[in-house]
């Protein structure tokens, strides 16, 4: 079991002796092998939620637990894919992917097989000895995903992973991620600005309010996806063309717009 559980999580930043609440009581349970996307206005604390699951930040009150254990530090069982890739610029593609395996102390032969496999899955063949700066943004993010996936983490934490990519690359990566999730399902927490992306990828979409962030609504996508058989369609644009998809997307847009309107006053 590797679920993620946020229980009464709040977060308050202190600056110049003043307190700035950024999260106002998050209760959320992401089930084992569930794909949950969080959308919300900028600064609503969605990235903070992800970073708390990663062990890179900590709640002011409440707890974040993964697999029943309270998160106290970062670890390879909770792999993070950052928006800005965060690849090691001085390491080749191969060595970047190898880094986490080496940290785990895996023997050489096992590492080799696993790296070759993930390189195949992510379409990185031929780029093993390239350095990150020699790759396009899309390829760099493939490496970052490979680096996370190769560790076979219980939980995958993705912080706007496609936010820095151009529209076409983004689409390809979204399709790849769906494919990868089918082959090798993981518990995924996915932060995004893009409503399309959230609805296309996630089983449930969490819509947050503006700062201090709270959960406005949790939208169930999985049941619609199954009922409407979105998986008949290979391509993202065909899924996005479905009436049921448009309906969900519009619903989420309205929820976000509501936050926007509040912001304008």
């Amino acid at each position, binding site marked *: 079991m590797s679920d993620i559980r946020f229980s009464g999580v709040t977060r308050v930043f202190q600056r110049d002796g003043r307190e700035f609440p950024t999260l106002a009581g998050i209760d959320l349970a992401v089930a084992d092998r569930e794909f949950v996307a969080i959308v919300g206005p900028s600064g609503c604390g969605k990235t903070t939620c992800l970073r708390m699951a*990663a062990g*890179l930040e900590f709640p002011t009150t409440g707890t974040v637990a993964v697999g029943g254990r309270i998160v106290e530090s970062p670890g*390879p069982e909770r792999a993070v894919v950052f928006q800005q890739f965060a690849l090691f610029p001085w390491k080749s593609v191969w060595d970047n992917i190898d880094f986490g395996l080496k940290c785990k102390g895996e023997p050489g032969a096992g590492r080799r097989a696993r790296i070759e496999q993930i390189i195949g899955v992510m379409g990185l063949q031929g780029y093993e000895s390239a*350095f990150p*700066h020699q790759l396009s943004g899309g390829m760099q993010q493939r490496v970052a995903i490979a680096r996370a996936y190769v560790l076979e983490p219980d939980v995958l934490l993705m912080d706007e992973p496609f936010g820095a990519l151009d529209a076409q690359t983004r689409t390809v990566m979204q399709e790849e991620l769906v494919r990868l999730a089918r082959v090798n399902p993981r518990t995924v927490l996915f932060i995004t600005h893009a409503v399309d992306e959230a609805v296309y990828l996630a089983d449930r979409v969490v819509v947050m309010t503006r700062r201090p962030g709270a959960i406005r609504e949790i939208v169930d996508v999985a049941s619609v996806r199954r009922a409407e058989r979105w998986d008949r369609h290979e391509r993202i644009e065909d899924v996005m063309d479905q009436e049921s998809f448009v309906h969900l997307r519009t619903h989420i847009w309205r929820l976000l717009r509501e936050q926007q309107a509040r912001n304008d006053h």
Partner: protein
Amino acid sequence: MSARSGQAPLPRFEATGLWLAGLGGFFGLWTLVALSGAVSAQFLPSPWAVVERFGELARTPFVGHTIQEHLVSSIGRYLAGFGLAAMIGVPLGLMMGWFRGLDDAVTPLFEAIRFVAPIAWVPFAALWFGTGIGGPVLIIFMGAFPPALINAYRGAKFVEPRLIEAGRMLGASDLRMITQVLLPASVPSIVAGLRISAGLGWQSLVGAELIVASSGIGYLMVKGQSAISTATVMCGMIAIGVVGYAIDALLRAVEAHIHRRRGRNAR
């Protein structure tokens, strides 16, 4: 290397011309003063007297050794002192940049000690390590150590946080974090520090040998002074200047090479 802001770099031949003019002007002035007879040869030896003396020092031993031998023994001491400073300063600096406790414990002490000129350590250097190899090496070490440490420390402190987060997320141990993330990320800063370190070490060497040594360029200069041979002292100064310049040029080349390689790696 770029020119100062608002100035285009000079064409190569013009730069070389100015370089020659500067050098020529200096020696010309020196020659004129010497020729005018306004100052005694004792007070300021003429350029040709220095050249002549240099030839003598190269052929016949002075206070036990030829000038080349003195230079070799100086360089040996220097390499030992600088090498130790780099070998201790860089890892310690990286560790200070990683372990918060070590940072808090060592930094205040170090911030004070670095203002004590290397030459101030002379009495202790002589007392603890003698006037042979150990004493001068300690003084060179004291000169070369601070920049080696400080730059490694700053390099480690200012590594992009996301790379550190990536390392921690991937499960890197402290050792792996320091050697595989902080060290490579800090290379430009470390190399810049070692260049300063090399220069300060070489400067301290002379001070060290002026007082504690039985050979070396500094020692030659002290003995030249006792023998009231200003030309000998001048020869020592020239040797120090030329070797210092060569050390700096070498490290500048290394630095430029690293920057070229890493410039391509920068995102």
